[in-house]
């Protein structure tokens, strides 16, 4: 914990607020993700987790507050510039391109590294030995995606497509990777595999922020956890302590309604 304080945090949110109509979906949220940490973001349904991810990745604009990545404010940048700044994400519902093959989907993740005019206009699909394709195939194999790289992505099993999306998000060589429910819909074996894979790719300096409901996955992968409830931050600390926290328990299980009679008895 103390070592974390020395280095500049990879991702810092300060007073992040987003309203839809009159409803504050994210209300004054502030926390820091230390460089190299694997942090979980949890909370009951409707707590604002996915909205917060959309604010971080730039799908929505924040109403107030600030978001910085490695000390650089990113909240005014369009999404593609945030990718260049070192941010990458996956989606809650798989958002692979259905008409692209497996390898094309993964190579699309390289876009920010290859967006000069020469790379854009070289015939990638005809260069089966290009370093881009080699790199994408290597990442596929390291992630245990053992299918024909040129296969259509739409026919593949759910767990595999989920993995492909994570690999695609890694192709831009992010400093911070944010994953929205990566284990949702996976069976226990696939979940364990994903956890191991994420641990193996979390090379020195890669920071993970993961929205997840599967608490055993969170315990397995994440050393720190932040908890949202009704758009507010209610816990920011080590993962092992989270389930003992009274406010977190109430958020998930509901607080006991205290009657006047009971209140009198307690008093």
């Amino acid at each position, binding site marked *: 914990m103390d070592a974390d304080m020395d280095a500049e945090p990879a991702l810092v949110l300060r007073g992040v607020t987003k309203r839809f109509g009159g409803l504050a979906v994210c209300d004054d949220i502030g926390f820091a993700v230390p460089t190299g940490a694997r942090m979980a973001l949890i909370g009951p349904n409707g707590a604002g987790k996915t909205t917060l991810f959309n604010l971080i990745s730039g799908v929505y604009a924040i109403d107030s507050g600030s978001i910085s990545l490695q000390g650089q404010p990113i909240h005014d940048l369009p999404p593609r510039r945030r990718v260049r700044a070192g941010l990458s994400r996956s989606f809650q519902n798989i958002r692979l*391109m259905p008409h692209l093959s497996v390898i094309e989907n993964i*190579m699309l993740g390289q876009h920010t590294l290859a*967006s000069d005019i020469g790379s854009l206009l*070289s015939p990638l*699909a005809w260069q089966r030995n290009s370093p881009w394709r080699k790199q994408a195939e290597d990442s596929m194999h390291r992630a245990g995606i053992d*299918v024909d790289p040129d296969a259509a992505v739409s026919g593949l099993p759910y767990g595999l497509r989920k993995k492909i999306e994570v690999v695609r998000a890694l192709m831009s060589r992010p400093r911070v990777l944010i994953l929205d429910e990566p284990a949702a819909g996976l069976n226990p074996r696939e979940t364990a595999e994903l956890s191991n894979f994420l641990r193996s790719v979390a090379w020195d300096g890669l920071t993970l922020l993961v929205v997840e409901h599967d608490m055993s996955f969170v315990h397995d992968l994440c050393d720190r956890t932040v908890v949202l409830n009704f758009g507010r931050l209610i816990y920011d600390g080590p993962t092992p302590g989270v389930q003992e926290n009274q406010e977190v328990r109430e958020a998930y299980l509901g607080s006991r309604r205290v009657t006047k009679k009971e209140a009198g008895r307690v008093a």
Partner: protein
Amino acid sequence: MSGYLSGTLAILCINLIFAYGIFITAVAGQINLGGAGFQAIGAYATAWLASQSGAPMWVIIPAATLISALVGFLISLPVLRTRGVYMVLATFAFGEVVAGFLLRSEIFGGAIGMVVPQHAELWVLIASAVMTTLAAFYLMATRLGLAMRSLNDDEDAATVLGVNARAVQVAAFTIGGAFAGLSGALYALNFGFVEAQYFNALLSIYVLLFVLIGGAQTAWGPLAGSLFFTILPELFRVGGSWRYFVFGVLIVLMMMVRPEGIVTRDLVRRLSPFAWWRRAGVAHGR
């Protein structure tokens, strides 16, 4: 070669290049219903340059193509602010504005049209069609082509992956404008006469159908669509006026049977001579 055959071949070449112009924007997820406007610009630029400057054809054709590309670039900036059906209407309006302008302008002959004092031989059309086809296949193989296709699939996800959606779509509109303009230039040089009434909404609809029926997923689609729409009506000539009915029914059937077009990516993959070999390689664990 008989006059009939060479005439049909010339129309096929023009239609094919025109179809690629619409295809390129369709690949990036935009429906261009103003194709006739771009073709008209290429055709009238050619007619005007040929009658005013007397420059040789190899100067006029690229010049007309460039002018149409420039218009494509400029028109994409406001058009790309619209989405979905509104974009379709915006491009449609563009086509109507171009036709209306040409119909009323004195220097372009108004309703009388313009005579083109030069003629392109069939080989010029064939060479242009071959080069356009190769260019389309090349473009589809590039990373720019990959980015264009990703926008058609899921623009928001592509943006979050770092694709500059607007820049890619502007590029698609510009290249599409160039191809459509080239087809117009060849039309003018083949028929020797241009009139604004020809470049109407029905033409825009037809060329869009070439692409949608042919398939917008691969560069094979416009080829299939142009062949389908150029050859079949000729074959149906024996049926007299019933041919329009038969052709219409056939289009509806095609849309029902192959909603993603005659040629899909999956079909290309299965027909590829490498597919069997590659599958065999995978089966043996590479």
